[in-house]
């Protein structure tokens, strides 16, 4: 009886095709493939980029944010063409005898401060600082956060506990106090401000990335990559990082907004780079010149408004990104 246990093919069962026949049908020779590979890849990336753009376009919030952000970037890039930088230097304006603490008048559309510097000129040059600090501090935050998060999640064990306790420490310590101390120790240069912001804001990113790295680590393709004989570095860069990247990316925009706000805060507290003009520093000077009590609104309203609008535009873009990257938030 057991002799007949072998499974039988059904009469209609098609014989599986021999491999060579299938290959012939395609009329393909492997040699021609490598040439077209790169172009196929580029085409595909372009297509997925276009699809994402189409999705982004449907969100008016995101579009409005993008338009505002682009406007700021344009102004920052075109600053040297719009107004001379000398307009932000106290010595130059004092010497030229321009009106001091003047309310908006023709020639000085947003008025002047006590050194006779035009507020509009300073706003335009200040955009450069805010955007530069925002962009570079975001990169710094992402690099530190992703490195710590992936190492902790991927290696686990003692490395994980150690890195996560460090992260907890950075999470619970009042960031402003830490930033103040660091900024005054390192000295007020633009680079140091970027470093300070990166150091005080990576912890949350590290937490999120670690969570994602933990789930990616347990996927079978990571086991396969190890079975292939890949080193840890290879497994991390080829498999873990690409699969954690969406999470990192979704955060960048919001972190940029926070970084710009932090820069303004530090500058307002007198820890900004004295060599450069920034919106936060303009606020601080306005405050010192008793702008509120004397009613000199043009000293504080324009820079304050610029900060709010720039940060808001980034938040709006971030909101739209969230909807693109998180399919659960999409309307069906």
């Amino acid at each position, binding site marked *: 009886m057991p002799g007949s246990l072998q499974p*039988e093919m059904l009469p209609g069962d098609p014989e599986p095709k021999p491999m060579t026949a299938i*290959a012939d049908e*395609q009329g393909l020779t*492997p040699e021609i493939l490598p040439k077209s590979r790169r172009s*196929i*890849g580029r085409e595909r990336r372009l297509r997925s980029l276009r699809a994402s753009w189409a999705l982004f376009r449907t969100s008016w919030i995101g579009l409005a944010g993008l338009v505002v952000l682009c406007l700021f970037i344009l102004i920052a890039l075109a600053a040297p063409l719009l107004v001379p930088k000398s307009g932000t230097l106290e010595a130059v304006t004092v010497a030229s005898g321009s009106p001091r603490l003047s309310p908006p008048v023709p020639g000085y559309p947003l008025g002047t401060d006590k050194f006779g510097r035009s507020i509009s000129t300073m706003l335009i040059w200040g955009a450069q600082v805010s955007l530069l600090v925002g962009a570079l501090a975001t990169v710094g935050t992402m690099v530190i956060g992703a490195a710590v998060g992936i190492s902790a999640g991927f290696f686990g064990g003692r490395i994980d506990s150690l890195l996560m306790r460090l992260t907890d420490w950075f999470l619970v310590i009042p960031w402003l106090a830490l930033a103040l101390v660091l900024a005054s120790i390192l000295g007020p240069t633009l680079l140091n401000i970027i470093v300070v912001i990166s150091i005080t804001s990576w912890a949350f990113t590290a937490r999120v990335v670690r969570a994602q790295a933990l789930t990616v680590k347990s996927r*079978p393709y990571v086991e396969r990559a190890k079975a292939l*004989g890949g080193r840890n570095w290879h497994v991390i860069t080829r*498999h873990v990082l*690409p699969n954690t990247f969406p999470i990192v990316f979704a955060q960048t925009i919001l972190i940029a907004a926070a970084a710009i706000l932090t820069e303004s805060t530090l500058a307002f507290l007198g820890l900004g780079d004295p060599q450069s003009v920034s919106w936060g520093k303009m606020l601080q000077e306005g405050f010192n010149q008793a702008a509120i009590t004397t009613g000199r609104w043009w000293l504080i309203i324009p820079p304050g408004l610029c900060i709010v609008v720039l940060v808001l535009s980034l938040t709006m873009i971030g909101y739209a990104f969230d909807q693109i990257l998180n399919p659960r938030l999409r309307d069906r």
Partner: protein
Amino acid sequence: MSVLSVRDLHVTYHTGSGGAPAVRGVNFDIERGEVLGLAGESGCGKSTIAGAIIRLLPDKTKIAGEILLEGKSVLDMKPGQLRAARWNEASIIFQGAMHALNPVTSIGDQIIEAIVTHDPGSTKTAPAKAAKLLEQVGLSGRRIDDYPHRLSGGQKQRVMIAMALACDPALVIADEPTTALDVMVQAQVLSLLADLQSELGLSMLFITHDLSVLVEVADRIDVMYAGQVVEEGPAEDVFTSPVHPYTKALAGAYPLIGDRIYRGNPTGLAGDPPDPEDIPSGCAFHPRCAEAFGPCPTTIPSLAPSHDGRASACLLIEGADPGATTSEEVSS
């Protein structure tokens, strides 16, 4: 020299309460060009053996015994040697191909990854080789740039097979390559594997719970129960005239299309395989065995060779050596 030689292999997983012996003293050899089938229920230690061969088990797992891969002891390898041996000497076709491919990388890149990891100088030639491998497993070479989500389950499994062949390994371990595929696709994948095996003269370790599958592809079968080999012999013989009651139950559980007497009356096997942390005394199979008698709960049967290259571990079988160790002796 055998491609793979396993001697007295013991694998104990680390658990909170001491340890779970998943494999308890397994011996087998795979000669060049031979296909060894490893059969048994879930949880009997089959996949653990596969993991032990390329050392992909959790860190705290204890592995004792000897595993010689192409004459080299796997258990004594340093991390660098181990990485070099993985995939070059032994590659794995994982169970559940759906998850063994990275969703954000094209299948071509993942095959190339295997080639380049072991031959860093082959970046230029690898794409052509990957395309050729794809055609060898019955896929069009043009699909090299496709992402895994564009492939069906059967196609993904073909990609996994192509990947397993990428480095011309001495041994291919197929760990339940047909689970999670429907019956038609199963048949196609099996015949593909059988074709490739005879074409390339592959040495294979084929792991499955489906005895009928093994009859088609394997030369010899080892049937495992509770971490031990209970029956061993040429594939046809083991399937058609099983000796051990467990093998009989496995063979009898397979439904036969067209057999009137058998129809609607497949004999199953009640119960579950034992918990590795709580293996029954004597013959581990005795609580579920239909033919258990007097000495079974106390005497551990040993794998006794019989005529025509077969062996089985059962006290019922003539020639089995009862009393190798008895639990009574141990306890008294």
